[in-house]
């Protein structure tokens, strides 16, 4: 049986113009990396959105794997913009293979 370690997986949904601010925070708390997935459309308190790339304001999903400790550093780092900029942050435990890097 291959060995795994338990890490936090954090996913943050943010306006694309804000993604850089999020990844800078990830780099700052020295998490080893991040990955950005495109998002197509959605709906929240402000109603539905879609096709927003044309207005320069679509959303992206930023995903990062980190130790529990760095994960809380990251959420604290993001506190100032979490509610002001409407970020959606979810986080859960995952098993990671080759986990020594994270």
């Amino acid at each position, binding site marked *: 049986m291959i060995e795994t370690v338990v890490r936090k997986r954090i996913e943050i949904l943010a*306006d694309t*113009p*804000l993604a850089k*601010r999020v990844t800078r925070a990830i780099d700052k708390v020295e998490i080893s990396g991040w990955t950005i997935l495109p998002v197509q459309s959605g709906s929240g308190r*402000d*109603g*539905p*959105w*879609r*096709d927003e*790339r*044309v*207005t*320069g*304001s*679509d959303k992206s999903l930023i995903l990062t794997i980190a130790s529990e400790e760095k994960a809380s550093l990251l959420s604290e780092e993001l506190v100032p*913009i979490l509610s*002001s*900029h*409407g970020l959606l942050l979810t986080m859960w435990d995952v098993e990671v293979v080759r986990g020594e890097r994270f």
Partner: protein
Amino acid sequence: MDIAALQTFTSPVVLFFLLGLLAAVVRSDLAIPEAIAKGMSLYLMAAIGLKGGVAVSKSGLDATIITALAAGIAASFLLPFIAYAVLKTFGKLDRLNAGAVAAHYGSVSVVTYVTAVEIFELSAVPAAGFMVAVLAAMETPAILSGLLLAKGGSKNGDPEERGEMLREVFLNASVVLLLGSFAIGMVAGPSGFAEVSPFFEAGFKGVLCLFLLDMGLIAARRMMDSRAITWRLVVIAIALPLFNGALGVLAGTAIGLDVGSAAAFGVLCASASYIAVPAAMRLALPQADPGIYLTMSLSITFPFNILVNIGLLTALAKALGGMPL
């Protein structure tokens, strides 16, 4: 309205925009892939930049262009103050949202300008090539006024981030592409442009058709989804382009622009940004509601300008210039 204005409604460019509006209203699933729409908007900016630069390389630079640039920058800075006053009082918006919306009305819409230029040519009053530079110059100053208005004197936010935000605003994609291809047009001149004109000139109106089809779809869908728009805001989204546009035509005529360029300056003042400014607002004023500022600029002002106001402003410029309508 004159013949040329009527011709507007038989131009495929405007008809495709109407088709887009209509298709969205009947809830058809017609949609243009976002990558294609983005590609077309880059193409349109590169093409008008190039054409403007080539025109200037032929006509040469003179004092008029400096005056026009200064007038454009001043208009972009000042128009938000008028808009803000109306939005706070008649429009009943709070400071934050009034500031955010005001920024949009000081800035400009590239596609409104491009469509206007096509219509001016039908009306035989072409705009000067350097107006493209004015267009680029007007994109961003309004953002500063809007932020000033929305945030009042308060200086929260760390200075590093503010600096970076400003850099992002001033080097945003459309400013760089418009000015860059304007410069390329000036350097390449008519002979250099000849090589690429089949792509950038012959294809232009066709691409504009498909792009406006998409804009029609997006504008109407956003309108139908919108929850935050009151009748007061609808009135403002129509009154502002009328007022700003007339002001622009007057100012343009006053500073000595030819009829086409004065009309173009009016269109720039009348148009509202829905690309550069919304993106900047997401960063700088995230609590402002995109359901207000995008719906006003994209779903009301933009169609009103395309379908009605460009024609009116052309007529006004002609009248002021002593031309028969």
